[in-house]
């Protein structure tokens, strides 16, 4: 049975391997966020239910140019700090407001990220969700994403940073479905329920 833990809550006093979002004090392991506890015999971690995006190397992210400087671009990556992209990395002259799909190449401490594999995205809608919900929006083997694409006739690129680039025949329905996933991400059997909902409304 999955269980929700709050920040500071004792998870175990056993000596087990730890994953993300836990901290160790003395001989005990505590949760550091509000999230779902993932516990097995020799491993614990907590999957957060909300939270800021922290860039990790190899993340594919959707980002937006915020400002243009002499030698590069300031890029909003929906994280706690902005990113700098040198002009030498892109072939075309870009302007503020341009959307990009990029890969996180390097992360300097907890602070600044570097990008590469820049793809320029055409202007379209962006739906923002908490980055921790992204795995649910994609689903196992893209199952959820395929359902969303099929019933709303959409073209969707999900950035790991929680920004979803999309063009859709039925944007309102897509937004509703994504909201549904975000608000119920802790529950099971979500893909089927979303599929039924989309079937009924498309």
């Amino acid at each position, binding site marked *: 049975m999955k269980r929700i833990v*709050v920040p*500071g809550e004792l998870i175990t006093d056993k000596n087990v391997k730890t994953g993300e979002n836990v901290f160790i004090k003395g001989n005990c392991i505590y949760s*550091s*966020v509000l999230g779902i506890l993932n516990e097995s015999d020799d491993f614990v971690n907590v999957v957060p239910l909300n939270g*800021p995006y922290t860039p990790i190397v190899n993340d594919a992210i959707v980002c937006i140019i915020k400002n243009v400087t002499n030698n590069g671009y300031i890029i909003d990556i929906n994280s706690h*700090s902005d990113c700098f992209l040198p002009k030498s990395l892109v072939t075309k002259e870009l302007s503020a407001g341009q959307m990009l799909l990029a890969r996180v190449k390097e992360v300097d401490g907890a602070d600044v990220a570097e990008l590469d594999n820049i793809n320029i995205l055409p202007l379209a809608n962006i739906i923002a969700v908490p980055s921790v919900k992204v795995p649910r929006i994609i689903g196992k083997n893209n199952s959820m994403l395929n359902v969303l694409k099929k019933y709303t006739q959409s073209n969707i690129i999900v950035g790991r940073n929680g920004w979803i680039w999309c063009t859709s025949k039925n944007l309102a329905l897509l937004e509703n479905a994504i909201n549904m996933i975000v608000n*119920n991400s802790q*529950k099971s059997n979500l893909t089927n329920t979303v599929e039924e909902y989309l079937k009924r409304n498309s």
Partner: protein
Amino acid sequence: MSQNKRPDGRATSQLRPISIRLGVNKNADGSCFLEWGKNTVVATVNGPRPIFPKHLADQTKAVIDYKYRMACFSVSERKSPVPGKRDKEISLVSGHALEAAVMVEQFPNTVIDVNVLILSADAGTRVAALTAASLAAADAGLPMRGLVSAVAAGRANGELILDLNKEDEDTPDAVDMATAFLMPQRELVLLQMDGCVNKKDCSKILETALKGAEVVYELQKKALVEKYPMDGEIQ
């Protein structure tokens, strides 16, 4: 401690009713609406995000910008909308208290904005505000060592009591001690008191406050867990 009833019918170590709603503000990363007796508080948390102006940045941690404000209509005589010394001091010490809970060292050079608005005041607003702010921070998914559970305790009419309301606070011998504990570690992160008390009573009031904070902590935990029901209809 005796179980004498107070003017509002509460026992000496009984809290006023507290109700908590989370995620009330969709524009904020985390938010909390809290009713504590006749106190009404809204708290929002945003960030961490880049800090401006840049010279305010701290290379070792996120800065918590805690803003405690009282609505003009929250007290019996209209309060000036300009934040006074009291508001600023409460903002400062409450910000420090929250810093002890949030793992600010994970987000250097950034700011976490915490805004608390008191809509209706009936004594103990700073502790209600801090309790709500800590919930909003947890709701925003910020990494934290624990929750901040705040409560006031003190003395009125010669009795040591928990959670003073305005009536208790206006008695001639009133002592009001605002406390906030980092829970479950039970460490004090905020402690303010004025009034004249002997040492023994001081220790007793602190113990009373800790017991109250434990009750507040259980309510906070319950509210956070209940925001995400594990089963039930998906809508």
